[in-house]
């Protein structure tokens, strides 16, 4: 539904996006992750029609987003830096949003008054960073968007508000089938809310899967052998291996049951399959890109 094809963007000779291709299916909650400087925010600014690409396409339901008011009316976004008019209150910004988004819901606006402990008549610039973020959420959800694009959305929110905001967001998703794209470094949190994940690195989308597919198709095996480590069956596709004491840890691609069955033939003392967390998937996939934690002693 929301797609980019071979997106390239250069800033003064630096290729921030280098042929990024991505597909966000309708109704998905898509988590965009990647190391610092991978191009996530640049990608998001293209998706919302803020930047114009050097080449490639950004399409919403097949139509380009750039300078297309019909497409932009369906997209609400909370960027890293939320723009509001310098003297405006939340209520005044709500009127601005209502003028831009035809679907803006006053009913929702009133409903959510009870949720956020904010004075909607007070000036936004006097509010703390976290409170401004709450205000941005409040207004974005009132726009009744078909696509919601969030750049580090819960950054700066306290734990209670984080949960509150995710809960509101997921209520909206299950009620209206909103498509959500969210970039974050908090993989633990993304794991709960996302059903699709895209991993970016150096201006490209490395990998793009549904979360259930990712988790079902990769397993972490912890194996202990009596003696020496035997050679593994050739069908076992090992992505990564490590060994602490007698415990061998393998990251294996493939179906869990089949792998366990195959591994049983190596006669292990202990064999355990543990599903991978998103954080581990991220680390192993990025490991292949030569991006890993370096062991440095200070």
């Amino acid at each position, binding site marked *: 539904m929301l797609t980019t094809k071979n997106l390239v963007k250069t800033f003064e000779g630096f290729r921030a996006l280098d042929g990024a291709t991505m597909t966000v299916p309708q109704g998905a*909650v898509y988590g965009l992750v990647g190391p610092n400087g991978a191009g996530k925010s640049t990608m998001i600014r293209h998706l919302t029609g803020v930047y114009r690409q050097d080449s490639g396409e950004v399409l919403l339901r097949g139509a380009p987003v750039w300078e297309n008011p019909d497409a932009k009316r369906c997209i609400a976004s909370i960027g890293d830096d939320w723009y509001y008019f310098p003297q405006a209150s939340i209520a005044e910004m709500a009127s601005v949003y209502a003028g831009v988004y035809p679907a803006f819901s006053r009913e929702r606006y009133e409903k959510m008054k009870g949720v956020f402990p904010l004075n909607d008549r007070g000036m936004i610039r006097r509010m703390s960073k976290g409170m401004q973020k709450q205000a941005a959420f409040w207004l974005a959800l009132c726009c009744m968007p078909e696509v919601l694009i969030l750049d580090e959305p819960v950054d700066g929110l306290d734990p209670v508000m984080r*949960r509150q905001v*995710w*809960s*509101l967001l*997921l*209520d909206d*998703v*299950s*009620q209206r089938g909103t498509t959500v794209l969210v970039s974050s470094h908090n993989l*633990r949190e993304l*794991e*709960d*809310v*996302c*059903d699709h994940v895209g991993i970016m690195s150096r201006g490209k989308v490395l990998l793009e899967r549904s979360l*259930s597919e990712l*988790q079902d198709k990769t397993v972490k095996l912890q194996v202990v052998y009596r003696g020496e480590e035997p050679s593994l069956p050739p069908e076992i596709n090992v992505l990564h291996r490590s060994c602490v004491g007698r415990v061998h840890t393998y990251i294996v691609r493939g179906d869990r049951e089949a792998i366990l069955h195959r591994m049983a033939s190596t006669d292990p003392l202990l064999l355990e399959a*543990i*599903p991978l*967390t998103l954080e581990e998937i991220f680390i192993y996939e990025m490991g292949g890109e030569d991006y890993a934690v370096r062991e440095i002693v200070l």
Partner: protein
Amino acid sequence: MIRLDYRDSRPIYQQVKDGLRRLVVTGVLAQGDQIPSVRQLATQLAINPNTIARAYAELEAEGFIYSVGGKGTFVAESGGESGAARRRELASQAAELIRELRALGMTQQEWTQLWEGGQADAYNEKSGQDL
């Protein structure tokens, strides 16, 4: 009702499944009771509705719950196929526990006490004396 543990290595849909099963087994949810809708649970737990839908779909395939179009999802009469499959699953987990307990020196007699519902108390008392 259902608690998600972030340190648990099980995937979230699995935790939702096990959580619902436990509620039924402990009698918190009786047969024929309505369980929360996908939307309610997604909002309450702040997790993706598709994750919950997956858990529900699998529980339904196992015959644990059933949905009535337009009305909601309900707890099925227990037993049947779902009971047998669950028993196999738990038995294999128990086998592992027993293996470990035996390695730690638990005798069959002590195990029988556990089985008969004397519960771990009897075992604890004894090991307490040992200390």
